[in-house]
């Protein structure tokens, strides 16, 4: 099995969001931002490793579009067990995910992958689409938000959560899949893996994504929720809570 996994370097969700002086971006330097491998991409990497282990042969390559510092993100995936990494290096990740998709698709095009895996979404921009866009650009079948997967030969069956149920989807390989939570439990890189990762091939290719058609106007803190109140303590406060929900909030 030849499997590509697209991974993104994102700020840890615990990060305190400090907005840069331009009013349009995250203050990475001043804000002391900690970066991690996008959590949904961990599910994708784990799935790729399990598929390769099951097949007994193959290759897992991880591909990341990002700044030089994203080498660290790639090393994390290599430490989990991926075989090699490609950094499509650019200082600025485009605000337009279609531009990201074009660069990634161009990199993937030259190899005959059996599977190309993505995360369901990146937890920084919440775009929820790069996998689907790449699939369309490559003309490959695509199943999104996969929480369960069976593959026999070139036939796959995936499950995805929808409102009020689970959709069971048949698809042929090669295919693009985006991973949701529930697909697997990602492994932690072991010390041995971390050591081995240092010696695995990591190719750096400078790229120049287009400007795209989405222009950031402003990045702002969310409006403060109207200061809430503690209605009281214990079951004695329930009467007052219900009164407030009816008369003040008008939700009952």
């Amino acid at each position: 099995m030849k499997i590509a996994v697209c991974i993104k370097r994102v700020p840890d969700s615990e990060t305190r969001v400090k907005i840069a002086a331009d009013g349009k971006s995250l203050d990475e330097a001043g804000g002391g931002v900690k970066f991690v491998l996008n959590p949904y991409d961990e599910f994708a990497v784990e799935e790729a490793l399990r598929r390769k282990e099951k097949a007994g042969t193959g290759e897992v390559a991880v591909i990341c579009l990002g700044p030089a510092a994203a080498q660290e993100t790639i090393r994390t995936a290599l430490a989990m067990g991926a075989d090699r990494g490609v950094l499509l290096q650019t200082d600025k990740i485009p605000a337009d995910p279609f531009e990201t998709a074009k660069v990634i698709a161009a990199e993937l095009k030259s190899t005959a992958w059996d599977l190309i895996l993505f995360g369901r979404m990146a937890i920084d921009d919440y775009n929820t689409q790069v996998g689907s866009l790449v699939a369309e650009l490559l003309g490959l079948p695509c199943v999104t938000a996969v929480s369960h997967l069976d593959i026999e030969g070139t036939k796959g069956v995936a499950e995805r959560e929808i409102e009020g149920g689970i959709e069971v989807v048949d698809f042929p390989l090669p295919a693009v899949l985006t991973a949701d939570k529930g697909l697997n439990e990602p492994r932690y890189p072991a010390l041995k893996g971390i050591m081995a990762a240092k010696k695995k091939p990591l190719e750096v290719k400078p790229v120049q994504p287009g400007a795209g058609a989405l222009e950031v106007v402003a990045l702002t803190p969310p409006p403060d929720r109207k200061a809430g109140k503690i209605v009281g303590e214990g079951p004695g406060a329930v009467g007052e809570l219900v009164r407030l929900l009816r008369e003040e909030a008008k939700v009952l």
Partner: protein
Amino acid sequence: MTTLAVLEQRDGVLRKISHEVVTAAQRLGGGVEAVVCAAGAVQGADQAGKYGADKIVTLTNPAFAKYAPEACAQALADRAKQGGYRTIVFAASATGKDLAPRVAAKLGVAVAADITDLAADGGGVVVTRPVYAGKALLKVKVASQPAVLSLRPNVFTPVERPKAGAAETVAVTVPAGRVVVREIKAAPAGTLDVAEAQVIISGGRGLKEPANFKVLEELARAFGGQAAVGASRAVVDAGWRAHADQVGQTGKTVSPSLYIAVGISGAIQHLAGMRTSKVIVAINKDKDAPIFKVADYGVVGDLFEIVPKLTEEIRKLHG
């Protein structure tokens, strides 16, 4: 210029989220054409007129009996190209999140996804989207032709603005899909999905053990079928509740009228999924729990004493 509002149906019945799509679309001015892919007539499709659709087009093909991602994307992209719409609006529902990028890619553009606000701006559209786990709002000018948007569910409250709603049915030819929905395993009858409920009562580790969720289920029942029971990741990972019920960054994003967090501390990843709820109530024994910072109303104390009392009071209201 006309906006194309993409409606949703399941089993031939229009999904309520479609009203939100039409409501948002008509805010851009210039008229709304609603479109839905279906195997035949869609029950409730005429409702789109009530919320502001000038025209309602049903694209029919037998393949649309179940969600057919590739066929549906092709039919919508064809329609979009013919109509030359300035903007195409989807719901960021499970289906919309899958479908919108497929259509956008066929049109050579991206989706401005999961938006919570929108406005026409000269030749383009300016949208607002929560990013960084809801800790910031990104305002983006969408200059692509067309602008493709998806709306966070439950944010655009449907507003009635009756328009002609002229119906048109067009039989379309579509390619055979490679990705085929074989079946839908439905959740047990009577359970409302958290993504669609107007009232959500979510439980966390404070519930102590899975069986205790029955106190939340009783409260949900007291709301007479409008309420769903949600969960924090801690209890989903522990296997107490299904992942479908998880609210938060790695679960569902919800914006109900009323969100009641019970025995949930309010970690940032949980808040990411529910901070756009209209009214938030927190019940927690720790008065310093972060959930109280986003709650409109808090009650400090033991949930096992407070929730049954609340259930009793709500039952009285719903008599």
